[in-house]
């Protein structure tokens, strides 16, 4: 993946969803808070700023009791700055082959992993989590689509592949993002330059139209490509479903939309080999 990395667009379409509960992250250096952030739950209305910079924290448990009341937070993550610096030296390690460093999303995902904030993740040496809820409840949730290949069906796909996500806004406009997967992890993304394809006026939900985009991606990046085209309405509904009922609900909604007959098509996977069908079914059952 190379240029045209519009992070704002990526965040807008595939960015994380707010946490289930409000939570805090504090960065400590020699027991002093040097930075921090308050992550608000989707249901929270106020936007209180984080005001603990400079605070001395000798006992994290004691501090947590105070902070939980002050910020109405369900949990807090305390990170030591020295540990973070050593984590950063791994995450932002400059590699001998180009590109020098990974993409921001991959780097943040790696840091989240090191912080142990993913469900079922390993215990972290980098951070201490305190609170009345499990850590994944007060950290932002990943977009469900980014875990598309995370199942044993995902292993039936090539190791490196592309997924083109096209959110169709109307007749002549769609937001496209091309994700590069390494195994089940997103390693990079870009905004494909489809200016060479004359697609205006075509039905984007026809397999032959989608196939043109897929072919362009395959030719351009020399990697196998898959695509998902869906309308803005379906996309928004899927995100809302994930927000309220979790990943499985979002996948279920996609599965249901895909199987609708005798209505205008609002979702299409192209190509759709059997592992893809199996993958979708699996995700909608397991989530």
């Amino acid at each position, binding site marked *: 993946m190379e*240029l*045209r*990395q*519009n*992070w*704002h*667009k990526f*965040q*807008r379409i595939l*960015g*994380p969803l*707010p946490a289930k509960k409000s*939570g805090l*992250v504090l*960065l400590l*250096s020699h027991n*002093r808070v*040097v*930075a*921090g*952030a*308050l*992550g*608000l739950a989707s249901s929270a209305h106020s*936007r209180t*700023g*984080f005001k603990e910079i400079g605070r001395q924290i000798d006992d994290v448990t004691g501090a947590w009791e105070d902070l939980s009341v002050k910020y109405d937070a369900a949990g807090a993550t305390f*990170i030591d*700055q020295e540990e*973070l*610096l050593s984590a*950063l*030296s791994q*995450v*932002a390690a*400059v*590699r*001998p082959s*180009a*590109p*020098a*460093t*990974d*993409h*921001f999303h991959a*780097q*943040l995902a790696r*840091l*989240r992993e090191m*912080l142990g904030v993913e469900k079922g993740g390993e215990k972290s040496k980098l951070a201490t989590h305190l609170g009345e809820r499990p850590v994944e409840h007060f*950290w*932002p949730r990943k977009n469900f689509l980014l875990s598309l290949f995370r199942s044993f069906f995902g292993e039936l796909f090539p190791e490196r592949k592309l997924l083109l996500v096209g959110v169709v806004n109307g007749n002549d406009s769609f937001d496209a993002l091309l994700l590069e997967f390494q195994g089940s992890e997103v390693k990079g993304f870009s*905004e494909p*330059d489809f*200016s060479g394809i004359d697609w205006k006026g075509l039905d984007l939900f026809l397999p032959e139209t989608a196939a043109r985009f897929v072919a362009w991606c395959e030719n351009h990046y020399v990697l196998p490509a898959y695509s998902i085209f869906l309308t803005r309405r379906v996309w928004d509904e899927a995100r809302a479903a994930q927000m309220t009922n979790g990943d499985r609900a979002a996948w279920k909604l996609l599965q249901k939309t895909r199987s609708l007959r005798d209505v205008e098509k609002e979702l299409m996977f192209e190509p759709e080999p059997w592992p893809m069908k199996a993958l979708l079914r699996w995700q909608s059952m397991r989530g």
Partner: protein
Amino acid sequence: MKLELVPVVRYWDYNSKEIFSAIERVRESGSTVLACMIPWSHLETDRHHLLQKLVKQAVASGLSLRLCVTPELGIGYPNGGVPDELLRERHNLAQDRLGHPFYACVPPNIHPLVSLLAPAVFQRYGHFLLKLTQELTEVFSEGFETDVELVVTDSLFKHYRNTGLAASDHGDFSLRHMQFGAGYKKEEWTPALAERIFHSRAYDFLESRFRKFSRVKVVSKNIFARESSHGRLIEELMGSGPNHADMFRDLIRARASCQVAWLDDLYRLRDRERNFLISSSLVLFGELWVNEHDYFSLSEGFRGKMRKLCRGFSTDETELVRPAIALSQNRFAPARISALLQDKLGVALKFKTSLAEIDSFERKNTKLFVVEEGYSLELRQTMELLGLARDRDCTLVLFRSSLCESGLKELKKLKTFRLNHGWLFEIGIYPGGGHVLLIEGQESSNLTMNTLGDSLVSVARIEPFCSFDRGESGVISASVDWNLKDESPEEKSRGTMKTLFLMNPEPEAKKLTLEFSGRVRIHGVSQGEGENAEGAEQNYGKCFETELPPLSVIPMSLFVERVTQAFDKVEEHGTPAELA
């Protein structure tokens, strides 16, 4: 005064065809200027022609251009535009006093920062400038009719500080960097000096190459950019986005040393918060750069309002009131007194690092000149500063440690008296009303710098225009003086026009009682009932009540009545008493 809201275009994100529509979109939005950061490594790729395409297209569309030629972070280009190869060599990387590298934690990737004075980096940057000159000269030689500015900024130097380190730890302490500074006296080698060396070489080079194009100007500007260290990383990890109130505070503090505000990621803010930050930064800085995605996400109505604001105030008859100057050794780590004034005076303060930076307008209009402790003044400089206080009514504040022996002797020629307000002052008053304050020291360690700050502000008579400024309301004000050219002397003798901008960063409405030091007339605001309330006489008054909506920037047109002769008299004789 000139106000400009400038969209920053990421031209490398477009192909040749798209550049045309991107520029048309900017033009149709009503903007007459656009800015671009030129990523260093992009010019080394096979898509480098896009720069020429952009410049050609912009000048053809009649848009003025600001091209930022120094590496900046958060521009949306991998590694901030610094070539990959330079990041691979450990000895090219900058590091803090504790030996940790600096990481830029902004999209599109987390990467270490290079030391801009490391030989390999410095040399490679030179190649970039050569290539840039070649590319731009080709376009400019074809002829053009618009203004182009090549902007040399304070670049990565402002980012050489890891979160949590003290201001005094600001800077690059890598071996290569220190070796570069080895030729300088230890106390002279500051981040500011390092920046100046890098900066002036780039500036001089560009200036010499583009002098032949009359419409191309090489300018040097300090840009406010959000911190990109660990604090930003935490924010990105939590997906919380910036807090508008913190950003507003940072902007106010940064105004002392920055001329341009650059806001690169407003997309997570709510519309009202974003609009507030944009309108307030526009008033405070005059020049505001916003990335194109944020710019186009503003509503057409709001952009129209900003256009009106810019049109209304962009004239040589207006001037943002900034009556204080602090001479600081190192603006990245201002000394106690400069930091204190920065907190106390906000946008009213300017940091300068040398006397030569103070222009003739500032010499004529500034009320307070402060030389921070440890800033060594030669006799020539001392005389120049004393001359300012002698020639007109202004206040000069010096620390004994700044003066050389001859300078002290010169000061002794002025009749002085001593004052002890916890801080020991020696005060001299020139017949023209100018004061010189020599700060001897602190009598008791219990006294805070705040006491000193209050004394200075009152001696220099930089009283806030409205008394709420010193309260805890959170509301900030900035005033703009109108110097109308077509005004008759008779009209001028009656009073002056001012616009007072009141900025409420809070999400709640604020009731304010505006208490002015003199009598004013405000359009559309009735007189209040505060202590200083007086009977209305031709709608003049000293005390007014108003309510500021949440997250608002409200301009108020004032007519300030000229003080009477009797009052002038009191002031003339009253100054020492006021001091005592």
